[in-house]
């Protein structure tokens, strides 16, 4: 397309079960850490799967201006994670946003024009705080001690805080992030489950390339660590229930003995920026964004196409968009949910798109370390992929020692491997809904 601007990655911010901040996360990945454990956020007994990837403790006060502290009480966990990621991303990028200036961490005026600063943040189906909501519902029971809408209308609902709904609208991640950092340009919220991050980053890439914004904070965040969000995938038998006694090794992407996914929380927001804008402010450039492809399965809306068509098409579209071929890819980052059927379909898709070449390319998956972080998962994968390319280092993929016989991914097992990586591809897909998105990055050269 004529006049298309070049887009680069200049900042990475992640919140993962193995660490917050890109450096901490990367070190933990290299050290083969697991962020999975018995759930501590609530009492998980009663749930068939009692393990999860929970974030290390953090204080939101470290990530917002003092004047915004009162807003914390209307943030769901998903929003908190996005706000944490955004701070890490803008500071990593050296952007002096309103937040950074108001926190006194940079002198002078913001070095970014709010009217050219956008957001594209993937979000999940945010779950209501069950303790708060159930407690309120329980105040509206009739004489037979059963829930009554009549009672709910007259007095029950007033037990919910007036701003209750605003905690759970998916666009509130972007809302809080754009307020905190004063990003007034194009803002979007992609809600395609686990595919959300890839699609949001891809869409942000397009908004910069076509000139609507110069900088976008993009990615995704979600928490599945609450009783309701744990229950949902269990109704579909997607969570491993055999690993409550060995949480650290429960998530086995593409494993011969994979038994299902491990629910998790987390996310990542990255800074994409027009190349000329990045250069003008002397920004560090991690990588260039060169390809985005999206597609969907048409086989079923709830289960993967065993032929992996949608995922394969997304990969092919991304390669074509990047103007490259599979022969020029040095690293692949599959999603690796670790359920039997999803991983099988994903392996088929990559084989379809890459053929015999796949077995020659290095691969990376974070799922064994961090679990399934929902709408935030893809951004964590993308950040890891960018770091690998930038550092010329392929980190080990924790817990991939015993792979499915059909698996052709070449994961690193122990020590990180030095390797010159010029191009890499990362894939995300929605377990249900079956949307897929793939992103291609390239080592930056003038």
């Amino acid at each position: 397309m004529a006049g298309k601007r070049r887009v680069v990655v200049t900042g990475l911010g992640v919140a993962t079960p193995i660490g917050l901040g890109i450096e901490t996360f990367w070190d933990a990945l290299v050290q083969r850490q697991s962020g999975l454990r018995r759930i501590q956020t609530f009492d998980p007994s009663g749930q068939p799967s009692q393990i999860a990837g929970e974030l290390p403790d953090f204080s939101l006060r470290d990530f917002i201006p003092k004047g915004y502290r009162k807003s914390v009480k209307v943030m769901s966990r998903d929003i908190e994670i996005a706000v944490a990621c955004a701070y890490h991303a803008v500071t990593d990028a050296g952007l002096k946003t309103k937040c950074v200036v108001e926190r006194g961490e940079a002198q002078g005026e913001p070095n970014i024009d709010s009217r050219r600063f956008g957001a594209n943040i993937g979000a999940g189906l945010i779950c209501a705080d069950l303790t708060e909501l159930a407690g309120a519902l329980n105040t509206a029971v009739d004489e037979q001690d059963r829930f009554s809408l009549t009672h709910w209308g007259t007095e029950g609902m007033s037990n919910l805080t007036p701003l209750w709904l605003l905690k759970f609208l998916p666009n509130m991640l972007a809302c809080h992030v754009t307020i905190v950092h004063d990003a007034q340009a194009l803002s979007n919220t992609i809600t395609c489950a686990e595919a959300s991050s890839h699609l949001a980053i891809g869409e942000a890439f397009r908004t910069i390339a076509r000139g609507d914004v110069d900088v976008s904070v993009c990615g995704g965040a979600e928490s599945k660590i609450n009783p309701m969000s744990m229950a949902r995938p269990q109704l579909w038998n997607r969570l491993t229930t055999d690993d409550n006694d060995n949480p650290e090794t429960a998530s086995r992407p593409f494993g011969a003995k994979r038994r299902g996914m491990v629910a998790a929380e987390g996310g990542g927001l990255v800074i994409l920026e027009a190349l000329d804008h990045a250069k003008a402010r002397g920004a560090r450039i991690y990588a260039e964004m060169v390809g985005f492809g999206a597609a969907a399965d048409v086989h079923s809306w709830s289960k993967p196409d065993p032929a992996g068509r949608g995922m394969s098409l997304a990969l092919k579209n991304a390669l074509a968009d990047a103007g490259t071929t599979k022969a020029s890819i040095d690293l692949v980052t599959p999603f690796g949910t670790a359920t039997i059927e999803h991983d099988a379909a994903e392996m088929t898709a990559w084989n379809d798109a890459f053929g015999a070449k796949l077995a020659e390319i290095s691969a990376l998956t974070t799922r064994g370390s961090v679990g399934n972080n929902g709408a935030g998962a893809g951004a964590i994968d993308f950040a890891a992929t960018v770091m690998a390319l930038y550092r010329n280092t392929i980190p080990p993929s924790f817990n991939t020692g015993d792979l499915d016989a059909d698996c052709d991914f070449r994961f690193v097992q122990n020590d990180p491997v030095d390797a010159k990586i010029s191009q890499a591809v990362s894939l995300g897909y929605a377990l249900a809904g079956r949307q897929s998105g793939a992103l291609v990055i390239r080592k930056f050269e003038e």
Partner: protein
Amino acid sequence: MDRRIVITGAGWVTPLGHDLESAWKRMLEGQCAVAPTTLFDAKTFPSAFTAEVRNFSLDDFVQKNVEAHREGSRNARFALAAAVMAWRYAGLDSDLGLDPTRVGVYLGGGEGPINFQPFADAAVVGCRNDQGQATPLDAPRWAQNALQMLDATCELEQDPNMAGAHLAVHFGAEGPNLNTLTACAASTQAIGEATHIIRYGDADVMISGGTHSMIHPLGVTGFSRLTALSTRNDSPQTASRPFDRTRDGFVLGEGAGILVLEELEHARARSANILAEIVGFGSTADAFRITDIHEDGRGGVAAMEAALKSAQLSPGDIDYISAHGTGTEENDKIETLAIRKVFGDHAKNVAISSIKSMIGHLIAAAGAVELITCLLAIRDGVVPPTINYENPDPNCDLDYVPNHARKMPVRACLSNSFGFGGQNDTVIVKALED
């Protein structure tokens, strides 16, 4: 030369009917679909009325695989019906040999309505000890019961991306498939972004729009707690009164609006009937407060200006504005202010209406349904009214096409959608000119 994008099909499921022409006719007659809520017992709710979709059956629209599609949420079923209607309007229902990888879906689909009764029952059970006494939520007790009481399919179908997934399967659309959920701006945003997907070249045809029903106990509760809803329980038919001085909040509606967007040459090659061209899109964030719109209408102004700029149109070129016009005190005042700022002297001359006065607020689906009225206004040379307009408000002093539809030539229309959290989206459509 940039690829141009036209609209070749439109379909909707609205509280005034689920047929494109008859619902349009009812809107032009100024009919109102607001009535006491029947989908659940809302008699004691602060706002006991809504604009519901009535007598809807998916079977009237879908035959293939309909048993399975029926398990979709209300959102997915509405979207399927509207999309089938749009597809047919576009003349795509006969096999034209479309490349399925070049057909995509971009919806502003809401979260599916919660399966409320089992959820509430499980919550109550979870807040009881062994003696049956009330306690704070006991998570293990809740889980043991909830996993028996909740329905797997209902839970899965609540994911906001599921409606678009049903469409992909039904139409065999293998191209890009996205769902945005930017609250009340979602479907306008979806249409704007879908236009860019075609323009960039990632697809030739996009099925785009929105679908949403929040007419369930928690949806109404959420808006009631925000005091966003009209509480005119003694007169539901006059409760939705955008721009009227006595407005007291919006009325919740439900439904879907779906468009077929198509690259111009692709449409011409098959001699498609072209409703209009999508010429402008603007999206901004207020970045102000989570609860309030910026008092100067900053984000709305920027969205309209961006849309006009991308359309290469000046305010004087716009004949009709389909307003967001929710009927809340704040929205209508600030939207009017924003239109005044963008349109200057022309603000007084442009016809503005809010069909929310007749069908309520369809939340994520609102923008798509409203944009369809713009297409029909261009096609038929008539704009729909803002009904229930009785008392002029000094803060809302523009031409809102009060109470009666107006015959007038319409070439270019601007449609606004503003969402909670300061989300602003504007799309401009225009009669196709060479």
